[in-house]
């Protein structure tokens, strides 16, 4: 009897939590690309994003791993152009990655090391994916993901669910929030339950909203 009561209470708590979490009811994952007017808005956004020759900014990455009792926080800056993606980590260690011509190089303590995709596929995949994400090509995204898009007045949300079973084994979904032509926040939920959140900030003025 006690057990049943406890289960009912748990269920009520869960429902209350569900209803109270803002944004859940207006989830981007309820808006597949191609429904409503989101196609036009997305197309405007991709055009704007692709118009940018170079994007630079700062990032804060927080990883929540189930086996850790505290999150891993990384801070640094990045710079992205069509041919080159640089990811400079400043803390907790100074380390940078350079992704150019499909080659990933790790630079630490002044030494360069080429990262083989077979040795660290997840790391390599991150840079390959983020290069295409910052270039935001609808065609490219739809090749690898089911794409969801929810345009707002000032901001927009993009949801991605992997199509490839291999990628789906590692990544459950990506939730990207942007403002104007900039990506502001990325939340990556892994199939294991671990998640990574990234906040991006840009020093130069905000380009016009789509």
């Amino acid at each position, binding site marked *: 009897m006690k057990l049943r009561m406890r289960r009912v209470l748990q269920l009520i708590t869960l429902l209350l939590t569900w209803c109270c979490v803002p944004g859940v009811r207006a989830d981007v994952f309820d808006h597949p690309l191609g429904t409503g007017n989101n196609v036009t808005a997305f197309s405007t956004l991709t055009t704007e994003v692709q118009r940018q020759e170079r994007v630079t900014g700062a990032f804060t*990455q927080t*990883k929540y*791993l*189930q*086996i*850790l*009792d*505290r999150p*891993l926080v*990384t801070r640094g800056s990045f710079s992205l152009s069509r041919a080159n993606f640089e*990811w400079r*980590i400043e803390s*907790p*260690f100074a*380390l940078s*990655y350079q992704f150019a*011509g*499909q*080659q990933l190089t790790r630079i*630490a303590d002044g030494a360069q090391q080429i990262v*083989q*995709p*077979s*040795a*660290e596929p*997840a*790391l*390599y*995949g*991150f*840079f*390959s*994916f983020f290069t*295409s994400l910052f270039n935001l*090509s609808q*065609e*490219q995204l739809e*090749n*690898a993901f089911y794409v969801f898009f929810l345009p707002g007045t000032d901001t927009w949300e993009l949801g991605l669910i992997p199509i*490839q079973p*291999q990628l789906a084994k*590692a*990544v459950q979904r990506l939730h990207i929030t942007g403002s104007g032509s900039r990506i502001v926040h990325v939340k*990556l939920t*892994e199939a*294991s339950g*671990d998640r*990574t959140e990234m906040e991006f900030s840009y020093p130069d003025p905000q380009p016009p909203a789509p």
Partner: protein
Amino acid sequence: MKLKVLRLVAIVATVCSILLGLYTLPRLVVNSDILALFPAAQQSPDIDLAGNQLKARIERKVVFLLSSPTWEATRNAAPEFVQQLRQCSCFAAVNATPDSNTWMAIQQQYAGFAPALLTPVQREFLEQGGANDLVQRALRDLLTNPGVAVGDRLQRDPLGTAGEFLGQINPSPDGFSLDESGFIRVTRDNQDYLLVYAELADSPYSLALQQQAGAAIKAAKLAFSQVSGGGILHSGALFYAQAGTQQAQSEISTVGLGSMLGIIALLLVVFRSWGLLVLAFVPIVAGLALGLALCHWLFGQIHAVTLVFGASLVGVGQDYALHFFSLRQSSGPHWQPERGLRELLPALSLGVLISAAAYFSFSLAGFPGLTQVAVFSSVGLLAAYGVVVGVYPAILRRPSRNVSPAFLLTITGAYLDWFAARRRTCGPLVLGLSGVLVCAGLAQLGVNDDLRRMQTLDPDLVAMDRQLRQIIGQHTALQYFVVRADDDEALLQKLESLAIPLQVLQQQGLISQYQSLTRWLPSAASQNASRTIWRDTLINSGRMADFLNQLGVRPDVAAKLLEYYDAPPEQPLTLQQLWPHLQQLPDAPVWYSVDDRSYGVILLQGLTDPEALRSLADPDDGVFWVDKVAQINQLLRDYRIGASGLLIFAYLLTVLVLIWRYGWRGSLAIVAPPALATILTLSVMGWANQNLSIFNLMALVLLLGVGMDAALFMREGHAKPRQTLVAVGLCGISTVLSFGLLALSDTTAIHSFGLTLWLGITFCCLLAPLAMPRPPGIPMPTLKPAAPIQLQEVDTNVK
């Protein structure tokens, strides 16, 4: 009555042979690999197994590189390209994305063995006190890793050592990457290529497969041609096999057509009968049909060289028909088929026996491809002989209504006169000068035992292959090591000990890379040594615990991880566990076992100095250096020398065999035309700066058989020398037409063969009157020019 039954049997057998050939034709498997002509087993059979495995693996591979001005356009068109290929049952697999399932299965096998799977470099690093650096580096990588599955990596490969181990096994070549859809992208000189790799379901030499694959590739290329500026590069044995088949087919039609046209013209001019024209082809068709069928059933496949030589049977099998027709024509109204046959039989039978023996001497040379030629040619000739002896007398019962063209008898008469006169007046000075000229030619004769110079590959394919290899950046050498050991563990230890000098050679730039089983799996001894170092430097020192603590790993998880990595599975990872998954990889290392012994192959890439590598071989210690091309070149040399001996032996044997019928003087006279023709041919080749190879020698062996025919007929038909010389000349011209056309072949081996026979048979026909008996004091018969056929001669039979 008995004769009638025999003839009926001959007719039925002829029809059956032709039907059998027609039945076999669509089932033929044509092999155009020149290596298939030569013996496979040169080292011990167990070592040769490595070559067979590599050959089977390599020859079924097909690689495509798709490109266009933009990667997106290439990638969007790739699925359709792949789909078109996959629709064909000729491909066992077509992929544009790596086989991640197999790779994941292999990683599953490695899971939990991180402490045992240290590379030699990692172990040395730990031994030299690098544990702190290793931990700091791992900490840095984990804390700064922006990728996914960091939690998984922390548990599976906490210090990143297993990742490095996997990286050294399978280093992605420079410029290789996977795009977000999983396609393999190769970037070279700012151009992106999409790699598609396929595996054929059957041998690339199967004609049916070549046709199916050709159609599928054409459809796939058509689909990709929609991409603006799209380009396709391809590589694989399939394309060389297709080119080889096309070349063989085109050469067969050239040789066959040229030969047929020549023979048709000859037959019409000489015999002026459409009926005989049709009948003349029956022995050839029956011979070819039976030869094809027998080779197909005996060998399972037929070599392109066999087919080309087979087409040349037209020239030789024709001789029997021509001699029969000539005799019938020269017999005029007195023609009696049985009597005519009796007259022809000795020369015909001796000729077929000597020719068949000459062809079969190819098998003595031990080349599997030439054994096929021997079987094909001998069976073909015997069938042709059977048709002439069994079928012709039954059909050609009535005398010929036409007489030999007078101009031919005039020419042969004039030539015989001229020849007899030269023979009488030829002084020692002329003979001496001729001898000096001939010897000078012989002295200039070079040799060629290099296989690569005997095979002419399609230059477009070679250029495309080279371009593709430059883009992919991989070029596995034809030379490799085979390592033999008593068991798997001993093999892995031997491979590990070889890795040390190989790495030195790699640093010296003599090789760019090597592939060895030990990269995938260290020996149990090495695994145990790694575990010990791991435990001493990382667990017992407390570094691992500090590391987990710094990362903030939950205490319960940290305790489990420490326990897990402190007490790894006691049993090492074995080949038996790994192999079922490993062997599914397209670039799996080569490993096999024979009689409980274990064998591994070390493949080399970017080899610049084979001799330096060869010095690592130690057959006594089970390390064998395999250089197939060098072996074959050595073989070609051995067989060239062997065939030279065989030729001299064959001439001596023929002289001895012929003595019982013709006496030693007669025997020498008969052997003289082919023997002198051989010497003259070699001399001309010397003057023409041609090199002597095994194929020239095989042609000279064949010349012995064919030339002997001409000499025997001249000897047996000496009573009617003009008519006999017309028949011999006709045979010579038809044979020269066939073999002369072989000299047009693009394959150097076939070209050499054709040219030698062309020269040899020409000389042999010109020297044929030497075989005629010359009673002392009696001059050669002289005939009036343009004399019509003399019926009296018909009755002068061979005594």
